[in-house]
């Protein structure tokens, strides 16, 4: 026994509604992920600078 949905013209409205629900959520996730991404990029840049700085320091101290 399986459900036999009655086909109605309404169905396209329902399917649109369901897709809008999904789209809105995926859009939100994309926004969040992009924001996180942006923060991560800043952090990578910061860490790279720190690392470069500490290498330079090291180089200086071993030379001096």
């Amino acid at each position, binding site marked *: 026994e399986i*459900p036999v949905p009655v086909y*109605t013209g309404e*169905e396209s409205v*329902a399917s649109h509604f369901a897709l809008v629900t*999904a789209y809105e959520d995926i859009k939100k996730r994309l926004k969040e992920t992009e924001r996180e991404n942006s923060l*991560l990029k800043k952090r990578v840049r910061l860490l790279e600078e720190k690392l470069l700085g500490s290498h330079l320091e090291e180089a200086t101290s071993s030379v001096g």
Partner: protein
Amino acid sequence: EPPTSTVFLDSCHFSQVVFTDVEKVYVPGADITCHYTLSEHITPRRKDWVGIFKVGWKTTREYYTFMWAPLPSSSSTGDAEVQQVLFKAYYLPKDDEYYQFCYVDQDGLVRGASIPFQFCAEAEDDMLMV
């Protein structure tokens, strides 16, 4: 004056069932429990069902799998009692596409749709905080 889009905007009856606690990602191979609440505008009937649909579905016949919706216990008086349906792992999608729950009443009308979810193992490095 041509007909307007009010039929679309009046999405009221599409939200008579609200899915809650939907995860973004479910672990493949495990059963999942679907939670939802029925608003006071819907009278659940014996042949209502909850289906898992691939996002972008066009007709309710395209459900991936389904379970009959349990009739809420008659003793319950709270109108927002959480209902639940268990989907066994065996019947769940095996790909990593997006799916959503939809509540379809016995007349075939969609009364609610959830946010999308996937079935995939989470990357181990996703624990890092930013």
